[in-house]
């Protein structure tokens, strides 16, 4: 079966994810072998909300595959700002490009785009809903270090209510057997019930506030940014922010194979002294993003393999 668009992890099977990440590994090992895969092809970057990392990572991936791109990095000065609908913007983009990467603050924008577009639409994140390519590169990083997709204990930490990477990562972990997720957040930022209902019965999980109690037993800690705007009372924000700061001391008790991830950008959740520790994998995670996005673009442009 061919998948036409990548707008949600929920549409993917574990077989698909495994094949995709294996293809990313090939690209990382022999990038030169894939230098012409997107030759003559154009990627349209439609970023209705700025995201430096996601956009540059997709552009780097497209360039490494020999392709080109056009688009905008913010709706400022475009027809979108004049009130054009997303549907009309997609109609324009699919006549100019062979594949679309869409980042939007509106939830459901991915589905709208997929309904309209004749070329594949890849979600680069929509509202607080999902960020599927981020979850795929997160899993790739985990796989590279632990050598497996299953039997993993993972703490997802921080803003679990509004963080768009949280649902996608939870869905991708629930595709594989015997994973366990520790959702670690302040009460007001717990995972949305919609997300829990989706993974219910597919993956074991636990909700808690204190990260330190689980640190010694987990394989991966995935830290997300807690944003000030989420708290009506600034005092609450300060309290919460300080309770989830990772320092070398916090990591004193972790397993030998433990790794620390963060979708970035970070603003203080992980202290700079942690960067040089062997457990810190967030910069490598960003680099892995390019290979995973190369594999995604190659799949949707060429359908080089089947599941």
């Amino acid at each position, binding site marked *: 079966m061919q998948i036409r668009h990548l707008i949600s992890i929920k549409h993917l099977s574990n077989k698909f994810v495994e094949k995709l990440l294996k293809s990313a590994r090939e690209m990382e090992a022999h990038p030169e072998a894939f230098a012409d895969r997107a030759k003559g092809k154009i990627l349209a970057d439609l970023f209705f909300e700025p995201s430096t990392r996601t956009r540059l990572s997709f552009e780097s991936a497209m360039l490494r595959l020999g392709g080109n791109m056009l688009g905008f990095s913010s709706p400022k000065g475009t027809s979108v700002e004049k*009130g054009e*609908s*997303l*549907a009309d913007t997609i109609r324009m983009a699919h006549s100019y490009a062979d594949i679309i990467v869409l980042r939007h*603050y*509106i*939830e*459901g*924008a991915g*589905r*709208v785009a997929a*309904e309209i577009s004749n070329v594949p639409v890849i979600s680069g994140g929509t*509202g607080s*809903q999902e960020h599927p390519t981020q979850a795929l590169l997160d899993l790739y990083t985990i796989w590279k270090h632990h050598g497996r997709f299953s039997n993993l204990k993972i703490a997802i930490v921080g803003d679990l209510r509004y963080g768009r990477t949280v649902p996608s990562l939870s869905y991708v972990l629930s595709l594989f057997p015997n994973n366990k997720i520790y959702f670690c957040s302040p009460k007001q930022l717990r995972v*949305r*019930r*919609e997300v829990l*209902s989706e993974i219910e019965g597919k993956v074991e999980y636990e909700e808690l506030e204190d990260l330190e109690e689980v640190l010694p037993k987990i394989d991966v800690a995935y830290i997300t940014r807690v944003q000030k705007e989420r708290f009506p009372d600034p005092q609450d924000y300060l309290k919460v922010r300080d309770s989830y700061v990772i320092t070398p001391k916090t990591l004193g008790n972790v397993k030998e194979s433990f790794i620390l991830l963060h979708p970035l950008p970070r603003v203080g959740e992980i202290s700079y002294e942690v960067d040089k520790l062997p457990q810190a994998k967030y910069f490598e995670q960003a680099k892995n993003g390019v290979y995973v996005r190369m594999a995604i673009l190659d799949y949707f442009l060429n359908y080089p393999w089947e599941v």
Partner: protein
Amino acid sequence: MTDKQSKQLIVAKIKDGVVIDRIPPGRSLKVLTVLGIDETYPAQVSLAIKVPSQKRPEGLKDVLKIANKELTQEELDKLGLIIPGAAYNIIQDYKVVKKEELRLPSRVQGILKCQNPNCATNFREPISTEFSLISESPLVLRCEYCERFLGEDYVSQLLYGR
């Protein structure tokens, strides 16, 4: 008094139209609101509120007879949302030609509005809303665009405007 006798006593037969029976007691007025039937409706409407019923768990029911009325699929879906379990009969020439139980629809298209202000369906896009049924009791629907849940309180407020 049986269901049959009570109906005969209180609500007269209609020649053509629909009979909605076994409505949860007291909810028939909401049904009229949802169907947009008010004093301007040109034909006979008969209503019985809280008459004895053996088939409803409450022991009571409402019965509604609307002459010269056909229900559209959209109206049936709306009724399925607010009075699941009620019976819907089509009457032609005093006879029941079709009888059906109203059920919660597994998919609701275009009737409800998503509660999430940041949902694509609340922007000017060429799409209509779509919800799927997650749970019957309590009623939970999921928006197929933004994936947020709608609860019973919100749905009834949307349907009845209060």
